[in-house]
């Protein structure tokens, strides 16, 4: 089945009460990993006492496993994943966890009494103390009891199978085969058929639970790095997106109105924003994606910052209304947290195959600016940028993220609010033209000569009453017009407005330490991490490679064409069949080639490094 391709290594720690069977669980998982062909290294950790009092810190038992796709020599320093079966296990182990690590907690024992027992004043699952981790809280015990009900065990025996539920869940999470564990359990409990069946059922239920409920994105990765000085925190991409939107709205002095409909993996943007009403944030869970974007557009018409968030299938549904937004030339931010498609696809898996959809997926000539985030923390800057373009140019802007970014987390150098430039909504306040009879009038489609943006005249502004809509507009007046020449002019003007955003986009700086690379690797979105890692590996072998990464997909930076033409080979790693590649080829007539992987997983740096190496060596041979 599934191989854990994109992870070089993972460290997992199972922790619980002595009676919780953590060692067994760890052993089994180790066995599964070994069977699977991983290199492994383990660190069991028993309580000093044979039977410490239940639910206490000394009673905690744990098992740590490091497994990897290359030679490893230690059981790992900081676990990436912690499974905590009770408050004591959490308390005892959380300090070791790497920032951004995943914590899976069984909530069954998180009672006031048990919390007090280990010195928690507040329930750590209910305050923000685990903010720097990815926390998944589940009633493992309750679900286990439910799953094994049929075997007629008592409550206690039933609940003891919870470690197998957890194991099943983890096995699913790391795409392990379950045959081995089932056989093991069948053997071990051969003489107690009820217990045997209960354990197998719990294991299967845990596995099924992972698969059914979309609780997890797939895997996560902790990328170590040497970091510039500053204040840091851990942040996930979806939270960073939410914060960026709030920041953009505040910098523009606008209310933020999110109209959205839940969908994996974008829902957390809603969840995060709905907690932030104190920033003048309105969150509206609409009846569907069309209503969601419609309400957001209505809010923009009314002078707020309209935002909508979704993933691929929802994006498809929003297309018509985004067309209306671009025709009415109102600010709107559309966040697409991409997932594996087509259709429902694999909702919890990542992909970047919506690029052409967001660029071309509307009727008629409908140019829309598109920006993409490169990493979880970069979602913040990208969101602020999306707001800036939307407000300045009066246009819908699509921000691309993906499941890997949205759910993934990384250290973030926290910006100072004061350092972020303000955004001027520049609301229209008065008339802007003189009509035939010399009267001062307001023309809703009279454009700013530089940006080509039209005035944003908000209801409530006296004297600027006007009507907009989706029918073609006459130049300046915005009246309905079927005039051919006017239509042509408006089509080209809308295109020119979007193209003109290039003036605000900084030139790309090529990362080419030697300055002599012949091969250029071009990325966009969440491939930034794997590409960078691959480039490092390539350079570590004394080869030369140049790298650029695009935040702006439409329009693209002004110097991109020149850069592309400077290299003998242009390689574009993408988690799709070559979508940016096709845009680059069409625009610049450069024979860019896609390094394409469409597996619902981030690209593997080592695979990519191999490909880049071959390209470099191939060129050298040719000459």
């Amino acid at each position: 089945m599934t191989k854990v391709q994109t992870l070089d290594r993972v460290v997992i720690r199972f922790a619980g009460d002595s009676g919780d069977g953590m060692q067994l669980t760890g052993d089994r998982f180790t066995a599964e990993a070994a069977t699977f062909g991983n290199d492994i290294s383990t660190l069991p950790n028993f309580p000093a006492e044979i039977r410490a009092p239940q639910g206490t810190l000394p009673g905690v038992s744990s098992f740590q496993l490091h497994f990897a796709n290359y030679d490893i020599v230690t059981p790992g320093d900081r676990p990436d994943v912690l499974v905590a079966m009770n408050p004591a296990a959490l308390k005892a182990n959380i300090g070791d966890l790497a920032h951004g690590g995943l914590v899976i907690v069984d909530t069954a024992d998180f009672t006031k009494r048990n919390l007090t027992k280990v010195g928690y004043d507040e329930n750590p699952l209910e305050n923000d103390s685990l903010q720097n981790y990815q926390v998944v809280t589940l009633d493992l015990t309750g679900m286990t009891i439910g799953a094994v009900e049929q075997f007629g065990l008592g409550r206690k025996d039933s609940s003891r199978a919870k470690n197998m539920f957890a194991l099943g869940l983890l096995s699913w999470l790391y795409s392990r085969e379950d045959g081995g564990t089932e056989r093991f359990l069948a053997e071990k409990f051969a003489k107690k058929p009820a217990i045997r069946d209960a354990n197998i059922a719990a294991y299967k239920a845990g596995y099924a639970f992972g698969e059914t409920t979309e609780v997890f994105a797939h895997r996560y990765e902790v990328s170590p790095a040497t970091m510039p000085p500053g204040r840091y925190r851990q942040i996930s991409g979806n939270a960073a997106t939410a914060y960026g939107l709030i920041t953009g709205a505040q910098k523009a002095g606008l209310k933020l109105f999110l109209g959205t409909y839940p969908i994996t993996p974008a829902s957390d943007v809603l969840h995060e924003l709905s907690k932030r009403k104190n920033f003048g944030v309105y969150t509206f869970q609409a009846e569907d994606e069309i209503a969601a974007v419609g309400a957001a557009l209505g809010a923009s018409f009314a002078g707020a910052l309209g935002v909508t968030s979704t993933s691929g299938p929802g994006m498809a549904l929003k297309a018509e209304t985004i067309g209306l937004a671009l025709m009415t030339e109102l600010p709107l931010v559309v966040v697409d947290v991409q997932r594996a498609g087509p259709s429902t696809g694999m909702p919890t898996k990542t992909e970047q195959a919506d690029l052409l959809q967001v660029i071309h997926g509307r009727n008629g000539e409908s140019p829309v600016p598109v920006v993409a985030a490169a990493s979880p923390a970069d979602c913040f800057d990208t969101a602020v940028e999306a707001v800036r373009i939307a407000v300045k140019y009066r246009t819908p802007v699509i921000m691309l993220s993906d499941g890997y970014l949205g759910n993934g987390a990384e250290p973030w150098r926290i910006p100072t609010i004061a350092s972020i430039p303000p955004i001027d909504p520049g609301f229209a306040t008065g008339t802007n033209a003189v009509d035939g009879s010399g009267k001062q009038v307001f023309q809703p489609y009279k454009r700013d000569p530089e940006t080509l943006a039209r005035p944003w005249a908000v209801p409530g502004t006296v004297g600027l009453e006007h009507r907009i809509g989706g029918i073609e507009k006459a130049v300046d007046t915005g009246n309905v017009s079927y005039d051919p020449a006017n239509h042509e002019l408006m089509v080209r003007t809308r295109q020119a407005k979007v193209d003109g955003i290039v003036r605000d986009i900084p030139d790309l700086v090529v990362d080419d330490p030697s300055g002599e690379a012949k091969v250029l690797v071009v990325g966009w979105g969440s491939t930034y991490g794997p590409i960078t890692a691959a480039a490092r590996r390539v350079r570590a072998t004394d080869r030369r490679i140049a790298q650029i990464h695009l935040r702006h997909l439409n329009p693209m930076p002004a110097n991109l064409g020149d850069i592309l033409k400077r290299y003998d080979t242009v390689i574009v790693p993408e988690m799709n069949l070559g979508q940016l590649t096709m845009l680059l080829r069409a625009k610049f007539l450069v024979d860019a080639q896609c390094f394409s992987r469409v597996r619902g997983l981030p690209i593997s740096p080592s695979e990519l490094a191999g490909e880049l190496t071959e390209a470099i060596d191939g060129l050298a041979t040719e000459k």
Partner: protein
Amino acid sequence: MSTDTTQPTTGHPASPAYRGLAGVPLSLEPLNRKDFTSDQEVRWCPGCGDYAILAAFQGLMPEFGITRENTVIISGIGCSSRFPYYVDSYGMHSIHGRAPAIATGVATTRPDLGVWVVTGDGDALSIGGNHLIHAMRRNVNMTIMLFNNRIYGLTKGQYSPTSEIGKVTKSTPLGSLDQPFNPVSLALGAEASFVARTIDSDRKHLTEVMKAAANHRGTSLIEIYQNCPIFNDGAFEELKGPSAADALIPLVHGEKLVFGRDGQQCIVRGPSGSLTVAATAEVDEDQILVHDAHRADPAFAFELSRLTDSGVMHQSPIGVFRDVERPAYDDLAREQVELAQQGTDDPEDALQTLLDGKDVWVVA
């Protein structure tokens, strides 16, 4: 820094008399219908019922007293949806079926705007049916005027979700097969707090119903029977002219349900428990039901809604079926935001605190 884009309302009289418009600034100077007439030529077919509805609306607006600039009209697509072009206020002629959704965004962020939605039977009940029922259950503060001509006008005469069974149109040459919606029943089933019906031919009634809608806080749905002389002429013929008195059952809160030129007909609860039409002369006076639009339970209004024919129209109640108090979604949403904002000191500091989170480490 203010996050409020509302224009200053200083100098305006306190608030309009109509509860649905509470919070919308009043005009300092009295307005007249011309003020609500835009410079665009009205482009409906001669004889179209839309003219009368537009005229009634423009005639009524000055009475509300709110400023033109705080008046917003959102429409979908259809003949009727050209309406906003003709009113000199803020307006959006949006896309097919989505006006209630768009209006939800307007209403939620701006308590100082009076929001009207103009839509047709296809726009509201076919493609836009879901947005309509959800707006009503949420009770977003807006008045929806549904121009029901029982046909698709703009696309040249296909049947609509309110066309009678057997209707022969371009798309149903052998007659339509689907049971039409009764828009009032549908609204009541969707938890609507205000539902009314009126007719293009009765300017006074139109105006009264629009006023009642404006006086209701939350979503007000007005179904307006509207004649399309081009593609569905005479759909409401029996409800007009001399026969009107015998065909229209006026609903007036607190008054007996009596109708007919000489009040010769009335509504009673029949032996089965269902409402029926009876001859006034043949029933005891206290059997005649009294209209009550304010009942919490929508069942009575629903019963009344079933007195409308679903085929060719011979009889229909008009007036306000239901008008009950229920918090408006947008009022509640703003309340949540305002509460959350209370005690926030400097928003920029608050934002910095949010970004910082609880667990910061420093790299030197």
